[in-house]
């Protein structure tokens, strides 16, 4: 009897996920588990927000040091004068991608004397990343990117996933607990277009702030404690990561404005933090593969 249970257990272990051993293997449900695991890696990184108004695109990233003893990871990477990225996931992979983006932009500038159109660059990046999802000797990049760029078509925010899907966004957020920030963005989306440069940065700060867990949020009323990085690009504004002084100034500004706009935020939403983000806990769950477990009765 016991032996039977043991066998059952081994069977279960073996076939819990039969279809995730290789990127090129389909599950019978039509899913690529390795690609989905890579997407899960993005959710382990700290949150980052991208948003834009008519003239500017802004990236705000939360820089939590991985341990008390280390400095925080760099979350924002400048690519070119008109473009920069914000990352969540495996930083080493992001470095490889940013090297690619940089050399593409540089080569474009050398050939044409102008900046790489953002949509075209992202399409090419997507094509490069897609190959990793279709070859047995590759693994998907374990990093999600938010790209803020400005070109003749105006400011852009793009989201790029490890699955090589990319999305042209009005505002977007990726990383751990980013759902709450997304809720903030969705709620204020209609106001973004018309608002000023300062406003859009403050919105970014508020959004990233709402992705913090409650206990950190209550520490000295949040804002000044926030360890964030802000970058802006737009009309007559080359991509710039704000320095410490500007950072503090904007945090203060956001704090002042926050008392009015954050107050309008229902308290209920704050309470939702923990429950909403529970599925994105630090150990990614394996996708449920019914066919792999189905025969165990």
């Amino acid at each position, binding site marked *: 009897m016991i032996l039977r249970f043991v066998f059952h257990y081994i069977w279960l272990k073996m076939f819990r996920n039969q279809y995730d051993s290789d990127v090129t293997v389909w599950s019978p449900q039509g899913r690529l588990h390795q690609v989905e695991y890579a997407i899960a890696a993005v959710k382990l990184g700290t949150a980052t927000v991208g948003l834009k108004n008519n003239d500017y695109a802004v990236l705000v990233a939360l820089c939590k040091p991985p341990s008390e003893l280390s400095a925080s990871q760099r979350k924002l990477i400048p690519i070119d004068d008109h473009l920069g990225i914000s990352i969540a996931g495996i930083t080493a992979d992001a470095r490889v991608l940013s090297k690619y983006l940089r050399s593409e932009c540089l080569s474009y500038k*050398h*050939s*044409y004397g*102008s900046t790489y159109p953002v*949509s*075209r660059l992202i*399409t090419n990046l997507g094509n490069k990343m897609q190959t990793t999802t279709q070859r047995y*000797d590759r693994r998907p990049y374990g990093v999600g990117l938010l790209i803020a760029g400005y070109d003749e078509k105006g400011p852009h925010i793009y989201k790029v996933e490890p699955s090589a899907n990319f999305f042209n966004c009005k505002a977007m957020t990726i990383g751990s607990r980013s759902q709450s920030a997304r809720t903030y963005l969705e709620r204020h989306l209609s106001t973004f277009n018309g608002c000023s440069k300062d406003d859009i940065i403050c919105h970014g700060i508020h959004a990233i702030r709402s992705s913090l867990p409650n206990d950190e949020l209550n520490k000295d009323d949040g804002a000044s404690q926030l360890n964030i990085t802000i970058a802006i690009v737009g009309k007559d504004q080359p991509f710039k990561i704000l320095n410490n002084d500007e950072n503090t100034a904007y945090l203060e500004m956001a704090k002042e404005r926050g008392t009015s706009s954050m107050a309008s935020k229902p308290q209920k939403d704050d309470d939702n933090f923990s429950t909403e983000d529970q599925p994105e806990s630090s150990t990614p769950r394996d996708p449920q593969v019914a066919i792999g477990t189905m025969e165990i009765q």
Partner: protein
Amino acid sequence: MMNNSCAQPMWLNGPSPGQFYNFMGGNNAPAQLPRELTTAGPYGTKHSTAAITTGSSVLGIRFDGGVLVAADTLVSYGSLARYQNIERVFQINNKILLGGGGDFADIQSIKRSIDQKMIEDQCCNDGVVMKPAELSSWLTRVLYNRRCRMNPLYIDVVVGGVDEAGKPFLGNVDLRGRAYDDYVVATGFGRHLALPLVRERKPKDREFTFEEATSLIRESMKVLYYRDTRSLPQYTVGICTANDCSIKGPFKVEENWTFAEGVSGY
């Protein structure tokens, strides 16, 4: 069962044999030179050293809302007026005009490459089109690269057009990749004959108007016809503004040879 006719190589993307134990990965062959430099023909390799079928002057004038580019329709074979009805001003896309002087075969060659780039632009389907300044920069790179390979394209081109904001651009790139942009550019004899005529009429404080530019083109093409032996009294004019980019013509030069009766002594 297995279709062996399209069998893939067994080993891709891995280390090449000897990569780990040979010095520098066994990769110490000199950098690959372009094929035309390394493969000699049966009697050696000779690059072209002169233009054969040539177009003469191209004249471009920038005005407040766009550019005009004009060239006569002659392609000469030496001193022979061989092809008399060939347009040398091309519309590249809705923002760019190209006027070609120099070896016409090389013009056609570079034009084919540019047209291919325009098709690639359209394939992106993102509404981004190439701007004249970008094409000019790209031509500089290509032509300078060909110069460095000791195999230049014998061309002298005028690139004109407007950018996304409707701001006009007019530039010139020659066979060595030298480039400049100005309110008036000319190639061939036009550089000696037409350029000074246009420059002396330039108001200091403003751009030319469209009317001034058209009359200057008309006048300059007449002077070029009278003074340049490799020219015809027929020319086409490309116009590029924010709303319109097209080739007009052919137009006739108003010739008047009554003064010729008084010319004697030759």
